């Protein structure tokens, strides 16, 4: 498998700020790669390093085997879908989409055709004559996508492209993006701070914090076996069990993670672990009820199916879970 993007201990510092700090990364061709992390963790900076808007302070970047440093953005076969779309307000939708072809000198008729095809692909046929200001957020997002895709880039960078959309639209776009990527086979590098988005869409996920990659792996691994406390906290709302509690459960680790949906409110069955506590809170989440159980001061969240009855606040309960659902973590 060809390597699309390679980061070899890449750093990017702004004065004292280490926006990206010794990152190693290798993205395979055709992969849907997600970068997940809180605000300010360096995701955008990584993307800008790939696009060529930033140069690494240290380290080396290769794109499809070629050294990327010193190649200006306009000479990279990498396109970006910007977070706020960055559509040209003075151009029509068609001209926006055809922009990349125009600056490459493609003839008027040919680029009009290509742009219309691209618009059709993102399900906006016939919108060509409008201005960006006349479109809704979701539509603009699609135009930005079409504008990038019409250039047939080898890598497509997407910086939180769905951040500004509302939930409904977002779910819809997630599906569309995913199937588009499958059908085109282009390498997607996708930045988000929404773990649900990353988990459902990506082939692999890199979790960033403070400029560094905390964990890099398959979505299931990142979700189920967080390597650090940060990942456990950030990816899904895991319960973090302290060393003391771990010991009580017979686990020798300074921290362990336990997913709410792995916990049941029921006496322990065969080989399962159990703890007892009191119900401290409950809320209806639609598909599930979230019940918070206080176990000697540690609050453990339980996701209980909506069909099950919810114990009253203050009532004593026993919670149980399988030993394999308890994941030891590093200290960081």
């Amino acid at each position, binding site marked *: 498998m060809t390597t699309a993007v390679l980061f070899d201990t890449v750093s990017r510092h*702004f004065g004292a700020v280490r926006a990206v700090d010794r990152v190693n990364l290798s993205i395979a061709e055709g992969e849907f790669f997600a970068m997940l992390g809180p605000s300010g963790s360096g995701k955008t900076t990584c993307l*800008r390093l790939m696009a060529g*808007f*930033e140069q690494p302070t240290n380290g080396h970047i290769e794109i499809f085997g070629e050294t990327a440093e010193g190649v200006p953005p306009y000479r990279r076969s990498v396109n970006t879908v910007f977070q706020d779309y960055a559509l040209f307000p003075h151009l029509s939708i068609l001209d926006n989409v055809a922009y990349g072809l125009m600056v490459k000198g493609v003839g008027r008729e040919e680029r009009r055709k290509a742009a219309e095809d691209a618009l059709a692909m993102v399900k906006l046929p016939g919108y060509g004559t409008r201005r960006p200001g006349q479109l809704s957020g979701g539509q603009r997002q699609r135009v930005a996508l079409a504008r990038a895709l019409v250039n047939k880039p080898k890598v497509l960078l997407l910086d939180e492209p769905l951040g500004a959309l509302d939930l409904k639209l977002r779910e819809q776009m997630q599906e569309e993006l995913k199937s588009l990527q499958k059908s085109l086979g282009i390498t997607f590098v996708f930045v988000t701070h929404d773990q649900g988005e990353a988990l459902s869409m990506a082939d692999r996920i890199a979790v960033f914090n403070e400029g560094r990659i905390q964990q890099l792996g398959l979505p299931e691994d990142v979700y189920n076996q967080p390597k650090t406390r940060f990942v456990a906290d950030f990816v899904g709302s895991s319960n973090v069990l302290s060393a003391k509690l771990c010991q009580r459960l017979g686990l020798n680790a300074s921290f362990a993670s336990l997913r709410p949906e792995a916990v049941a409110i029921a006496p322990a069955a065969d080989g399962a672990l159990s703890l007892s506590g009191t119900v401290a809170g409950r809320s209806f989440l639609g598909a599930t009820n979230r019940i918070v159980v206080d176990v000697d001061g540690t609050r453990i969240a339980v996701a209980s199916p909506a069909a099950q009855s919810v114990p009253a606040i203050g009532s004593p309960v026993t919670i149980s879970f399988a030993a394999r659902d308890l994941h030891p973590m590093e200290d960081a």
Partner: protein
Amino acid sequence: MRSEKSNRAPLGLKIAAAAGLAFMHVPILLIFLYAFTTEEKTYQFPPPGLTTQWFAVAWSRPDVWAALTLSVKVAAIATGAALILGTLCAAAISQTRFFGRETVSLLVILPIALPGIITGIALRSAFSMADIPFSFWTIVLGHATFCIVVVYNNAVARFRRISGSLIEASMDLGADGFQTFRYVILPNIGTALLAGGMLAFALSFDEVIVTTFTAGQQSTLPIWMLEELIRPRQRPVTNVVAMIVVIVTFLPILGAYYLTRDGDQIAGAGK
């Protein structure tokens, strides 16, 4: 966005910008130079010698002081009037919607968009038709007319930046219209008004075209300069006065810059 701006400018751009700025400043330097020349009748170049005597001469000439005081008075009063009218207008335009709003905003811009000579001659003939004798007040009237737009522009820009919900938040918390103006609007547009006021003052202070038409026998500083430049006695005195005015306006301009800039940042936080 951040990094693009921290990039270095292309050389060609730097040269073009530097050349443009040089073009703008060489004549100013010349004015400064001739404030020190020893030759008083002609502007011989290069000056035969340098002296500071003209500063003393300018200081002791009563006509300089008379023109200066008149200009300061006119500019102060015109600025005051412009501040009030410009703010009212900006408030009405930006806080309400009404029929003819566009027309009003055009009307405000008109006195500066039409050549000054038209404003001047229109006011002049109106004054003489209405039998208003030319006086200090006719000068003020003329100046205030085109100063309004400067204040208005600054105030409107700031009003636009104040998030609309700020005013609603104030009302929501129990402040009536006047309290909202006093405690929320005024502090937020204050710096913009100050900046607009300073620009208006400077504009009035240097105005000559409208003034020639609306002034009677009084001469403001620019009119005095016009007289002096055409019928010179002690030519360098004009340069001394011009130079001092430049130096004295330096601080307010810098102040206006920092005021509007910081103000934008503050107001931007509520956006």
